[in-house]
């Protein structure tokens, strides 16, 4: 039992903290907000050089073989910097899906490229009618003579515009007409029939809606052997939840720090805001929420490779709890910044939007408390 950082983890933290502090200031964010790409390829290259893109990839594929705790260290700092580079999409989710589902050849072909920064990935899974039900996919894949044909609509495809390969989930039509297995397909950017509608994403970065109309793919576009991919998707999304939780912790902490400082400096009625007992207690509660979020995010990371029920409960528990805590810290940070908090003039507004996006991604607190209960055998999953 030891929750102290190892020496390597401490070094990683110092390195990423330093990089973020030096690179991601408000000026950088303002520049990249207007950028149609939404992130900087030069910085992506630096990530590669610093080894961060290789972190969770197995050593045999050019990675460093690190785990969710290390990903969390990186993501927490990324939260503080409001980093918009497609790290989660590419390294945590994309590479994660390939590692979980891919054939040996696919892993060999792609994972080293992720690690060296030459391949970015995106996961196209959500559909409007599915809300946050990972099993609900209507996009259809049909086996054809020379490969596959995909048809369907995806929404909220994070970083889709920046990806060399988009991993698209689809139901493989079964011979007897029943709903088929959930499978994953590698769809190269620019494939005919693939239409991206790109947009600015709440809280920074970009996302897109994706139409697949008669998209033809080669036979080896299927990721893995064609067995149902839902368990692997759940495993990877659980790791994404842990990573997002760490990112949220970074944001919460900096919002709290900024708010604490602001209430000490800002004068009203002849004394600092922080002289008000109501505000002092609110800040105490915010500090508590930040600390709780830190604990439960760490738990999700430490449990990221546990058996599916324990892993899923830890991940959903963390998403749900951090969602609640983040909402409190974010809303109170804006509230205590007063009118300036509800403008685009201060960073606090940017952080606020990023936490709102966090709460939305993969479903909010209610959804994940329900999953936590269902995985614990307490209620039917549909309730």
């Amino acid at each position, binding site marked *: 039992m030891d929750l102290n950082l190892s020496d390597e983890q401490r070094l990683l933290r110092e390195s990423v903290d330093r990089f973020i502090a030096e690179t991601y200031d408000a000026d950088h964010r303002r520049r990249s907000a207007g950028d149609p790409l939404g992130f900087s390829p030069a910085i992506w290259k630096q990530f590669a050089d610093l080894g961060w893109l290789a972190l969770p990839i197995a050593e045999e594929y050019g990675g460093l073989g690190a785990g969710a705790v290390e990903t969390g260290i990186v993501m927490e700092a990324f939260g503080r910097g409001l980093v918009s580079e497609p790290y989660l999409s590419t390294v945590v989710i994309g590479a994660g899906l390939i590692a979980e589902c891919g054939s040996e050849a696919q892993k060999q072909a792609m994972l080293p490229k992720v690690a060296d920064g030459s391949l970015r990935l995106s996961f196209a899974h959500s559909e409007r009618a599915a809300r946050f039900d990972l099993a609900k996919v209507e996009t259809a894949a049909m086996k054809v003579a020379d490969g596959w044909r995909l048809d369907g609509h995806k929404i909220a495809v994070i970083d889709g515009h920046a990806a060399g390969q988009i991993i698209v989930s689809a139901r493989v039509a079964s011979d007897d007409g029943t709903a088929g297995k959930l499978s994953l397909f590698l769809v190269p950017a620019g494939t005919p029939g693939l239409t991206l509608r790109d947009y600015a994403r*709440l809280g920074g970065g970009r996302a897109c809606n994706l139409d697949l109309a008669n998209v033809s793919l080669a036979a080896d576009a299927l990721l893995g052997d064609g067995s149902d991919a839902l368990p692997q998707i759940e495993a990877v999304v659980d790791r994404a939840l842990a990573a997002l939780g760490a990112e949220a912790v970074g944001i919460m902490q900096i919002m709290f720090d900024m708010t604490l400082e602001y209430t000490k400096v800002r004068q*009203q009625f002849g004394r600092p805001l922080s002289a008000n007992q109501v505000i002092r207690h609110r800040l105490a509660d915010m500090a508590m929420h930040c600390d709780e979020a830190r604990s439960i995010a760490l738990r999700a990371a430490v449990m990221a490779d546990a058996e599916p029920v324990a892993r899923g409960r830890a991940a959903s528990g963390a998403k749900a709890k951090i969602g609640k805590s983040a909402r409190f810290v974010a809303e109170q940070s804006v509230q205590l910044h007063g009118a300036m908090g509800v403008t685009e003039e201060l960073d606090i*507004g940017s952080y606020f939007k990023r936490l709102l996006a966090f709460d939305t991604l993969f479903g909010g607190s209610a959804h994940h408390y329900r999953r936590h209960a269902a995985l614990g055998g307490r209620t039917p999953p549909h309730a």
Partner: protein
Amino acid sequence: MDLTFSAEERIFEQEVRDFIAQNLTPEMKRATALTPSVFSDPDIGMAWQRALHRKGWGAPGWPVDAGGPDWTPAQRWIFEAECARAGTPNVNVMGVKMVGPVIIGFGSPEQKNFYLPRILSGEDYWCQGYSEPGSGSDLASLKTRAVRDGDDYVINGTKIWTTHAHHANRMFALVRTNDTERKQDGISFILIDMKSPGITTRPILTIGGDHEVNQVFFDDVRVPVVNRVGEEGKGWTYGKYLLEFERGAGIASAKLRDALKTVSDLAESDATGRAIDDSDIAVRMSEIEVDIDTLEMTELRVLSALQTGQNPGAVSSLLKLRVSEIRQAVTRLGVEVIGNDGLYVEPMRPLYRLNEAPGIPEEMLPIVPEYLNGRAYTIFGGSSEIQRDIVAKMVLGL
């Protein structure tokens, strides 16, 4: 004790409905629905003001001799409720509900004759110059200074959070005309032509991406002394009168019910994958609906008291707090209802004039900006913290 309206009141209700049916165009209705702010753009809001004025309903709260329609409290209720249900635009409240009553109460005959008709007709568009950078909820600390020079005041300083200053041709402002021991005593209430030389306006984008508020700078701006309302140094009193004028006339439940219906309709649509089938969302919808029912009953209790000439008492002081919280709850539920589509950001404004179809169903567009902008409900006009201080002191006698 009953909740039904009298026969006369039902006739009036029908008159309001007929008026709305004849005057509220589909464009106005759509523009209102697609405005993620409590303030309609003037092209929409003032068109509606002109229609109301043609009917003699340009200023429901004003006395008859100033051009008001002489409604009972129940009639005002019915009017507001029907407008909310139909989704009519908001008019220039800074004119009709704010500066108008102050001019009626304290203005000179010349001021009344000049300004009031122009408010009713929609010829003038007003903004409010109260807050300053650094003043926050401590309004009396304001520093914008008006120095007497002959028949003019010369104004220097800056106002902030000035809603629609970029649309307005007039501003009413609180300015410091004297340094007094009690800060409140040196403040005067003044009417400013926004085209005066020396006024510049800087836009401030809200967190939801809307241009609604501004910072306004005054650089040796000359305003005739006759544009001062009432006595010099009494501006604070007039400002407070304005708050009391609004007291008891608050009819927020109908608008909230309409806002909740928008969210509820979305939740029941396929566009959200029928979010309503999520029991958490269904139950929270009920929670908010009951909160609105509660608010409505409180408003009706106040209205009943007013109808019989009683003082509604402490209860109305508690309403602002709840109204802002319920508004925020509605907007928050909206965000959860639209799920992943809430990640979509539409930077263009106004939303009702987009050149191409957006990436998400149109009716979802205002949802996230409304939530974001709505964080201001508990800040502007005296933060909820200040409101609770006031309730403790004024209502509970602490």
